[in-house]
């Protein structure tokens, strides 16, 4: 079945999802996504006029709690930072927002 989704669209969705696919994989990925989206099209056969969307199966509504800050211990803080890929002096370190090679310095 002809797929409704194009490689261009897949690249656009990937950008939204902060993903990238190598050019040589894009074709196969587009075909697979297309075949799944074709299956999604089966839903057009269902009459849903006047049906309310259902987004949860919970039996609870509007659960409130006090807005209260909880202090973490030094040990917890250290354990959390240990999971970070890069840290410096108790902070999580990230690369510069601007590409350093374009920085002109």
């Amino acid at each position, binding site marked *: 079945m002809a797929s409704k989704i194009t490689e261009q669209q897949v690249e656009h969705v*990937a950008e939204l999802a902060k993903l990238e696919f190598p050019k040589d994989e894009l074709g196969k990925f587009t075909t697979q996504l297309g075949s799944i989206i074709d*299956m999604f099209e089966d839903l057009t056969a269902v009459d849903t006029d006047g049906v309310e969307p*259902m987004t949860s199966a919970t*039996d609870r509504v509007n659960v409130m709690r006090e807005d209260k800050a909880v202090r973490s211990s030094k040990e917890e803080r250290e354990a959390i930072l240990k999971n970070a*890929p890069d840290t410096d002096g108790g902070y999580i370190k990230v690369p510069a927002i601007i590409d350093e090679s374009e920085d002109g310095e």
Partner: protein
Amino acid sequence: MDFYQTDLTQLHDDLVNKKISATELAKETFDHIKDNDDQVKAFITLNEDAAIKRAQEIDAAGIAGDQLVSGVPLAVKDNILTKGLTTTAASKMLANFNPVYDATVVDKLNRAGFINVGKTNLDEFAMGSSTESSAFFTSHNPWDLTRVPGGSSGGSAAAVAAGDVLGALGTDTGGSIRMPASFNGVVGMKPTYGRVSRWGIIAFGSSFDQVGWLTRTVKDNAYLTALIAGNDEHDMTSSLKEVPDWAANLNDSTSVKGLRIAVPKEYFDDLDEDVHDVIKAALDHLESLGAIIDEVSLPHTKYGVPAYYILASSEASSNLQRYDGIRYGFRAKDVKNLEDVYVRSRSEGFGEEVKRRIMLGTFSLSAGFYDAYFNKAAKVRRLIAQDFDDVFKNHDLILGATGASTAFKIGAEIDDPKKMYMNDVLTVPVNMAGLPSMSVPAGFSAKNGMPVGLQIIGKPFDEQTIYNAGYVFEQTTDFHKQAPKLGGQN
């Protein structure tokens, strides 16, 4: 020590009467696991040193007489947070992740004195039906090592089937407890949505995810599920409803006489013949015990898979945004700027199936497609839930097969995602409606000797009726007493 010839009650008695100590039991459990796990590959991480230390502490303090799991070795699916014990979700993204807190279910088990033997394999982020999407390795079905154990809780199911443990925690978003239970000839219960806290479960589809157990017996399952159930202030979707003592309510007088069982004709549409024969025999058996069996219709069944894959993938695309390479998890090397950290870390850290789900979800939620896909699927979800409501007006339970086939061969479906998704046709409708549902061993295929599971679906929060019927079925058959002969033919 293997766990084929015992159950929780028996093991507890043995521990209390000092026929075996918790430490000896833990050591024998690891011996057994090491004997078979190079073939089965159920575990990503074994917790041996900590488990034996914990068993020694429990021996020193004495087995708690009122806690059946005190000193009992059990396993935990590796998408459930365990403080200080690596929790990977079978993803390269979290290969070195060390949780700083326990999931509520693990906390409850710790307080009851369980011995955590280790973390079981799964499909990456619980997305899959075979464990083949695990970033580390594929688990093998103990009944036939060339076949998949099902997924996503395949490691947990295989560990129970291999006699490693009496029970292992799983999670079920679209069938991930029940399907592997069916493929491995064990009991698997997905409780009602909201029955068990999801706090500390690595989120996949938050409006579908539930935690539950894979066990050898129905009674063990009833006991263990009650132990982890109940309201939790950390999960605002967890129900305030009281948790009954399901196991205590099971006894020899439990009967299926007069039980009104609905059998949806749609659940037989695409069954393999060998599965069909086993399920038909199981229904005949229950009828002979006095159950009233009626054929009914759940007309929107066939729309369950497309609607589920839109909704669950949409929720996944949102839940998995947190993996950005910044605070924890995998960060790509040689990144030039912040955008690069996000894109490269996610592209290199996630496997193919996870990326496919994120893409499907992002597409379904994106401008121009939201109404046609996400919103349409959410409406179909309502219709599926209403189908169940209608049938439950006049029936106590809905029965059918758990899977349309028995466990398939490793490699048979991994390159055809659509075919893989269709494995979930009989399990996803239950998650859409938030219902409780259990798979119990119902017999073996005449074609390949593999186990077949009978699915028992109940009304919201009526796990008791499911356990009662499952218990009667189990006690009047001997399928649960069969054990795989590892490495040999069954």
